[in-house]
């Protein structure tokens, strides 16, 4: 008997008992959907949690402060800082040469006065109404590498990497204007004035602060941990403000940040290289922080959750496989006479075995495929609801990916389980003698 004959026999069996086959396929599909949806949602949750821990940056990200390290706290995630120590280009170059460093991104902060001339606080907004001018910090990073820094966009977009007329703001800054995080997106499109102050002593000896002002459009709302400040801008814009302030009279403005860089964001070549890179940077003379221990702990917990959820899905698939076995046993019982005739006209044991295994495999594959698609759709639907809720709260949303490997593995796994489940009735059918089968 050829493979095509075996397929034809299996198809005929399916057509004769469509209700039973459909129910069996639905059972497999539901189990596969459960398995796929749970693991997809677990993976999404893991990504969201780790992203939160890494503040939107890469997991192997390390923050370097413009301060000396405290040797007693080496290795802790967030050590206290030692004495202030400027970061200049020489230090950046030395850190870039530390073994295990992949990328070094300088962070520039600039003291900034922000005027929002057209801001009108509505009665619905919480907080004070008349805060046209606030004093904050502008954080400048190389925005062409924005995905590598701990910044999460919640509305709008990032400024152009070289722009001097676009900024993002944080919900914390907006709160100072009486805008709650749930209405943060309304700030996008507003034009603000940004002033960098400079201390100056006039010819008559009086202290004066004169500012360098620029205008910028708020193009997005972000939560960011790249530096301490409520305004995210291109490195070009922050550098201009920083240099203006740093060039002032130190006797008038002793608090002005004169370190060329206020910090660095260093990315190690993988999570495993983080301890080595941190040690190297501390040897250069700067304090570092990274959530490496926390991330490792959370990853362990999330893997346990994944194993439990995956286990539940596998149990569901196993139960569905028992359904396949039961359906095939019933088919064997009903088709004994047909099996006997097949064997009487020359069909071999393995031909009968093959026909029943094909039937089981097809049911497993079709059920697995439908279930995988259904599971992904379910995960998407849940992800959309959660994303809408989080964004409505002014938080970063979630993105449910398309786990191709998981989908393919689920279909293959469903098929294999069905084949295993179908092997018992198939073998029983194959072992039937023609005489015994025809007599009954």
């Amino acid at each position, binding site marked *: 008997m050829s493979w095509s004959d075996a397929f034809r026999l299996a198809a005929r069996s399916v057509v004769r008992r469509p209700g039973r086959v459909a129910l069996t396929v639905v059972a497999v599909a539901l189990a596969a959907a459960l398995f796929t949806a749970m693991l997809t949602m677990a993976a999404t949750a893991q990504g969201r949690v780790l992203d939160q821990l890494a503040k939107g940056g890469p997991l192997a990200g390390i923050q370097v402060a413009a301060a000396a390290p405290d040797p007693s706290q080496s290795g802790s995630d967030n050590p206290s800082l030692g004495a202030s120590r400027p970061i200049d280009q020489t230090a950046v170059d030395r850190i870039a040469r530390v073994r295990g460093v992949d990328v070094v991104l300088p962070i520039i902060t600039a003291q900034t006065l922000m005027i929002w001339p057209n801001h009108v606080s509505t009665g619905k907004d919480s907080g004070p109404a008349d805060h046209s001018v606030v004093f904050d910090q502008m954080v400048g990073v190389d925005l062409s590498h924005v995905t590598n820094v701990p910044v999460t966009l919640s509305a709008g*977009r990032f400024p*152009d990497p070289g722009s001097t007329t676009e900024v993002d703001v944080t919900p914390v800054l907006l709160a100072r204007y009486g805008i709650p995080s749930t209405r943060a997106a309304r700030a996008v499109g507003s*034009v603000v004035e940004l002033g960098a102050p400079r201390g100056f002593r006039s*010819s008559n000896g009086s202290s004066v602060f004169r500012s*360098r002002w620029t205008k910028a459009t708020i193009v997005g709302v972000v939560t960011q941990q790249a530096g301490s400040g409520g305004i995210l801008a291109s490195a070009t814009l922050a550098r201009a403000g920083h240099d203006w302030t740093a060039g002032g009279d130190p006797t008038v403005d002793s608090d002005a940040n004169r370190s060329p860089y206020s910090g660095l964001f260093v990315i190690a070549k993988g999570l495993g290289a983080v301890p080595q890179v941190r040690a190297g940077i501390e040897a250069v003379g700067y304090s570092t922080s990274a959530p490496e221990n926390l991330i490792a702990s959370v990853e362990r917990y999330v893997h346990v959750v994944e194993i439990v959820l995956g286990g539940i899905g596998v149990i569901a698939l196993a139960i569905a496989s028992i359904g396949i076995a039961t359906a095939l046993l019933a088919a064997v019982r009903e088709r004994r006479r047909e099996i006997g005739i097949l064997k009487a006209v020359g069909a071999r044991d393995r031909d009968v075995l093959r026909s029943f295994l094909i039937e089981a495999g097809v049911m497993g594959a079709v059920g697995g495929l439908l279930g995988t698609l259904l599971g992904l759709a379910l995960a998407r639907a849940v*992800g959309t609801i959660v994303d809408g809720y989080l964004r409505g709260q002014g938080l970063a949303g979630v993105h449910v990916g*398309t786990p191709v490997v998981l989908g393919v593995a689920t279909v293959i796994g469903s098929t294999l389980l069905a084949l295993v489940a179908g092997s018992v009735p198939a073998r029983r059918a194959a072992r039937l003698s023609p005489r015994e089968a025809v007599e009954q």
Partner: protein
Amino acid sequence: MLRLRGPMGIAVAVLSIVATACGSTAAQPTVSHARPAAPYRYVAVGGTDATGGATVDPLLDAWPQQLFRTSMPLSAVFVNAAVPQETVAGAAVDQVPTTLAASPTVVTVWLVTGDVLAGTSPAAYGAGLHSLLRALRRGGRTTVLVGNSPPAAQLPGLVACQSGAERHNLRCPARVPDATSAQATVTAYNTAVATAAASTGALVVDLDAAVSSTVAGGGPAVLNPTGADLSTVGSTLVAKAFSAALRGATGRTSP
């Protein structure tokens, strides 16, 4: 409406599920690539009024800030070099170096009160202003707008000193000129402004006419109640006068 049944219907349903599963619903961050505009630099040289003086919110309401807000392009950079109670001689030391370092496109100059209260003679004022404007013009590369003095009765600081009451940290002269001699001084100053502007290529912003017409028209008070500084309304009036002059000089009709 198309109704599908049987295998075709099942196929369409499966494709719908695939499309739902594979479609992306989360917004992805995007980065625009707008070309930065050409630099436009504006520096304000002035005294107390240019720093916002006694307006409701000096940073928000200072007239150079209003001029920057309403009449400069989005890409403009503005430095407010003003020093309270500055004279022309003081500005040459305190403000000109910063201004020249900025290589400005536009400079506004309004320095009257400090010199009137310091008792600077119109001749010395004119000579100092001429040197100042010539330096700021940078050989014609910078558009310089210079404001003249409003009528003595509306000149910030002078009014407060004449009142003899609370002097609001002003450097009032020991002998404050009376209204008649003060107006004569203002007139002489305005002649000096016109002469210095004409000889250096700077443009005069006629605040004398602008304030006079507002006061004559019964408009709101240009000075704050103490007379020491411009009110917010006065700041806006001065900003509008400079804005009109800037439009006339550059042909620019909007920021």
